[in-house]
């Protein structure tokens, strides 16, 4: 149980892990997440379920290497097991027929958005995907996203693939051109600043905008309150009330400040870890 079946580095520092987890695979729905621990001394880290195969009893996790915990997870290889794997957690996405829908995936946000896009398309939506990354080398799952999209727009900051610029530009253009109001919903998942900018972009068009928040968590089951966010002036817990929220109601500035709480500790931990790894 919770053994890694296969692991590949999709693009530099982004890993795909296929994990044997039959119980989670049997229940997982788009939008949900798991909590993993790499080893006994590790942190509890939430990761979105990027795909699941009920027949094979596997789930797919996408991991971006940032600090100690993600490095420890990325060092696990096929055949290794997580110290802990818990899920599926969080509310699943509401899969409705919106007519047309824009799915904005920024960077590693492609992972969570993929199963949601697939489910929405199966529901009958016309899916317009805007997939963005800093450059061509950091784009992954283009083929998968293309397969679940009626339209697939790529953007890169440097223009090395698709259109040069940010995801918000085609998003604005699409909404501005949507005179018939066929676009019923926008999903935006990626770095916090991108989700904020997408929410700001869609606000004047008054289109429902759903974001999936990646707050710091400990237990993931509602018990600690560490993942709290301010939604429409109320305190909500990302783990049990989310992770998806109305992007227009999120207090982005407090959310971003909360993501920086442990910045100094994280640096200290990483320096120590890199030192340990290099001498071992």
């Amino acid at each position, binding site marked *: 149980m919770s053994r890694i079946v296969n692991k590949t580095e999709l693009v530099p520092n982004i890993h795909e892990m296929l994990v044997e987890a039959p119980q989670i695979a049997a229940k997982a729905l788009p939008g949900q997440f798991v909590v993993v621990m790499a080893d006994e001394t590790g942190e509890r880290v939430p990761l979105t379920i990027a795909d699941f195969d009920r027949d094979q009893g596997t789930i797919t996790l996408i991991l971006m290497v940032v600090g100690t915990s993600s490095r420890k997870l990325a060092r696990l290889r096929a055949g290794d097991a997580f110290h802990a794997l818990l899920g599926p957690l969080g509310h699943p996405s509401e899969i409705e027929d919106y007519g047309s829908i824009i799915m904005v995936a920024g960077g590693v946000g492609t992972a969570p958005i993929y199963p949601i896009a697939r489910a929405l398309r199966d529901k009958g939506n016309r899916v317009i995907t805007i997939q963005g990354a800093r450059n061509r080398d950091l784009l992954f799952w283009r083929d998968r996203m293309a397969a679940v999209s009626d339209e697939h727009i790529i953007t890169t900051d440097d223009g090395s693939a698709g259109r040069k610029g940010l995801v918000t530009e085609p998003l604005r253009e699409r909404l501005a051109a949507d005179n018939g109001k066929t676009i019923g919903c926008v999903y935006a998942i990626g770095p916090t600043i991108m989700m904020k900018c997408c929410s700001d972009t869609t606000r004047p068009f008054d289109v429902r905008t759903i974001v999936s928040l990646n707050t710091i968590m400990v237990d993931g089951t*509602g*018990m600690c309150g560490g993942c*709290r966010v301010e939604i429409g002036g109320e305190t909500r817990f990302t783990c049990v009330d989310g992770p998806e929220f109305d992007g227009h109601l999120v207090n982005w500035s407090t959310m971003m400040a909360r993501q*920086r709480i*442990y910045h100094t500790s994280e640096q200290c931990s990483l320096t120590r870890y890199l030192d340990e790894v290099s001498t071992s």
Partner: protein
Amino acid sequence: MSAVNRQQRTPMPEQDPATRARNFEEVPLGYTPEQAQQEAARCLNCKKRECVAGCPVEVDIPAFVHLIAESEFAAAARKIKETNALPAVCGRVCPQESQCESKCVLGKKWEPLAIGRLERFAADYERMNNLVELPEKQPPNGKKVAIIGAGPSGLTVAGDLILLGYGVTIFEAFHRPGGVLMYGIPEFRLPKAIVESEVDYLRQLGVRIELNQVIGRSITIDELTEDLGFDAVFVGVGAGLPYFLGIEGEQLGGVYAANEYLTRTNLMRAYRFPEYDTPIVKGRTVCVLGGGNVAMDAARTARRLGAEHVYIVYRRSKAELPARAEEVHHAEEEGIIFKLLAAPLAFEGNGDGMVQRMRCQEMELGEPDDSGRRRPVPKAGCEFTIETDLVIVAIGGGANPLLTKSTPGMELNRRGYIVADDAGKTSKPRVWAGGDIVTGSATVIEAMGAGRRAARAIHECLSG
């Protein structure tokens, strides 16, 4: 041995306050065999066993105390374990002063017998001398019981039913069993090695523990009974979502719910960061909001993590503090400062998203409220500010909806807690519940008492 001193209890040695305020070692050091015997000799061995009636799990107190007096220490531990699977835990965290010891006849004139200290001694003696023996179990009866949550109530149900011949599986959401004993109560009050050892005893008895299982999500209760062949289910999922105050600035960094602060420290061992990866904000001036045992635990933890000033900010007066007297006493000894009759108004940040100060309102006591305690009311025009870089909110919590919302047919009360009778029977067939998910926040031993009654009821139902 010296003459029996009926008046005064035998003191238990403790770590010196100045030393212990900077380490996570256990505070009380426990009795030596001589001290335990000296204390046990104080027991009057009353005919009417009031102390037993005061124990939620009905430990045969006079019998085990007598065994200690007779130097039969391991036998004393086994006597306790006949009705209490977690004696080393209970000897440390039970509020004996309001239970067994409050009924002790000695206490009418003098100091009551130190029952908790003796319980702890017996359990520690047995464990530390490797004298733990497994009791006789009834032969397997072919029936299976699922227990949700490896906290005090669930462990008690497991301990009772495994001896009666049931197949017992505990499902626990965390990566370590113990529930609040593991994530909530600090190391210096309940060493985690002791929790592990008591859980291990249950495992040796045959209890299966499945970690990292969030029942309601990975498996539902209906699946446990319908697909997985469990004849009964006990729900003991414990504490719920922490309350916040709903005041300005509570999203700031350095403002924690006590659940998070303690879980980071105890379960994730943030006090050993960076050896353990989970970090924690360390404050120089810490404010803990609330006056219960959890507030005391948080305050004393902050002190050990290096805080120079730790304040307990509580809106009533000292007389109304809900924490155990011993916890308040220990906190005071360790230099925790009680700012009484004060309520927070708002938190202010330092511009970098971290808390910097707290605005407070001075309070005074007015007329008694529904709880019978005098209601704190704001003192007009009396506000003050505390500079603080760490705030821990310890004002309790509500019911966790994760399991209950995914369980059709189980009646909940208005506040989201499971409705159950005294034996723990819920409105859902074959499902019992106990502990905090039924009563709201209470004590370890009350949860264990609920587990004991539920185990009895489950046995009656399945063997009838």
